[in-house]
């Protein structure tokens, strides 16, 4: 599981769903959660929260151009590529933080991913879990 820590800077809610923006050292991450104006709500502006997302939900892009709906896309440098028969693990240096991605070994080959490549990593808002940090 990848974990980042940040501060909640924006909450946009409908009755049962909310989009929460979290500032992680200047980058804004979005998470969609199943809590809204109706029912209990566990998040507050300016509170600290952990962002959690699985390695298998992190995609990698190279020379990405055009528009894409993924809100969470950030630049990183590949620190290491470990390949297995079906899956590969890409370890990323994202502004000094460690992010892991597990993608197919075929994609690693097709994209020619290797150490020191500059890439972008992406994760969908509905794959990001939020865990408030008690104050």
């Amino acid at each position, binding site marked *: *599981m990848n974990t980042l820590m940040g501060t909640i800077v924006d909450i946009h809610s409908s009755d049962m769903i909310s989009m929460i923006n979290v500032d992680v050292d200047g980058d804004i991450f979005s998470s969609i959660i*199943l809590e809204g104006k109706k029912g209990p709500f566990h998040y507050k502006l300016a509170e600290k929260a952990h962002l959690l997302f*699985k390695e298998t939900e992190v995609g990698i892009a190279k020379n990405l151009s055009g528009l894409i709906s993924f809100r969470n896309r950030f630049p990183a440098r590949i620190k290491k590529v470990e390949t*297995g028969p*079906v899956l590969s693990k890409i370890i990323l240096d994202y502004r000094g933080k460690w992010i892991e991605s597990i993608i197919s070994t075929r994609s690693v080959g097709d994209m020619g991913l290797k150490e020191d490549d500059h890439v972008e990593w992406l994760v969908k808002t509905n*794959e990001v879990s939020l*865990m408030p940090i*008690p104050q």
Partner: protein
Amino acid sequence: MIRVRAKKKLHTSDGPMELDVCFESGVGEFVTLFGKSGAGKTTILRMMAGLSEPEEGYIEVSKEVWFDSRKKINWPVQKRSIGFVFQEHNLFPNMTVEENLHFALQDKKDAGMIEALLEAVHLTEFQRRRPAQLSSGQKQRVALIRALLRKPKVLLLDEPFVSQDLELRLKLQEEMLDIYKRHNASVIFVSHDFSEIFKLSDRILVLDKGRIQKSGRPDEIFAAQTISGKFKFPGVIVDMRQEDFLYIVTVQIGNNLTKVVAAENEVRGLSTGDHVLVAAKAFNPIILKAFPKENQKT
């Protein structure tokens, strides 16, 4: 209806502490006392049983006053309609299982219950054995059904499932819950086992330093402190295997075996038998009708 108000000074490993609690519980309600050791959970059970006396307060069960410090009422243990299972099970060593159970009967007309209860906890073949010939899990099961024989209004259970192995524990929990519901007994339960508490409790009282800090349904109590996933279940790891960079973790959730794919850093520190919380974003699961439409009853 149970009404408890109790104050008592205790000496814990962290020094002196004042227990000061007040709670009510409905008939047939399953209430769990949850908190760190030394929070006062066992003392509350002992006070309800009449084994420990509050300095101030009252204990009332179905309009009977068992204890009232002002009116100087203090019913002895044997007069209180309770069944209790504590970690030490206190069976008579010189009697067989059957004899232990018969001895516990208040009304000999209820002897018929014994056979059904023994069967429910898979001990029918062991009824002629003495406690020394039983495993600690088996002794605990005898204690669990013995507690029911007096048809108590209140059952006080202090970690009653600890000595059971995983598979039996899950089965026992379900069967005991069913039996308790049928007898309409109110249960006051102490446990540290997250999945057990989640499964069994109607309500949880969170105790800290002798006070009730929070009270609510299990999902209310635990939801706030965990992650945003709405798809989450407590379970037990039964198997873990590595495949490429991933681990395939088999988790028993209720009676179902599920598989969870996890990265190395997620499984670090986990092993078979560990209790875990499995969570996913509510957006991920796919929902499908279990039967074709034409086969469903309307």
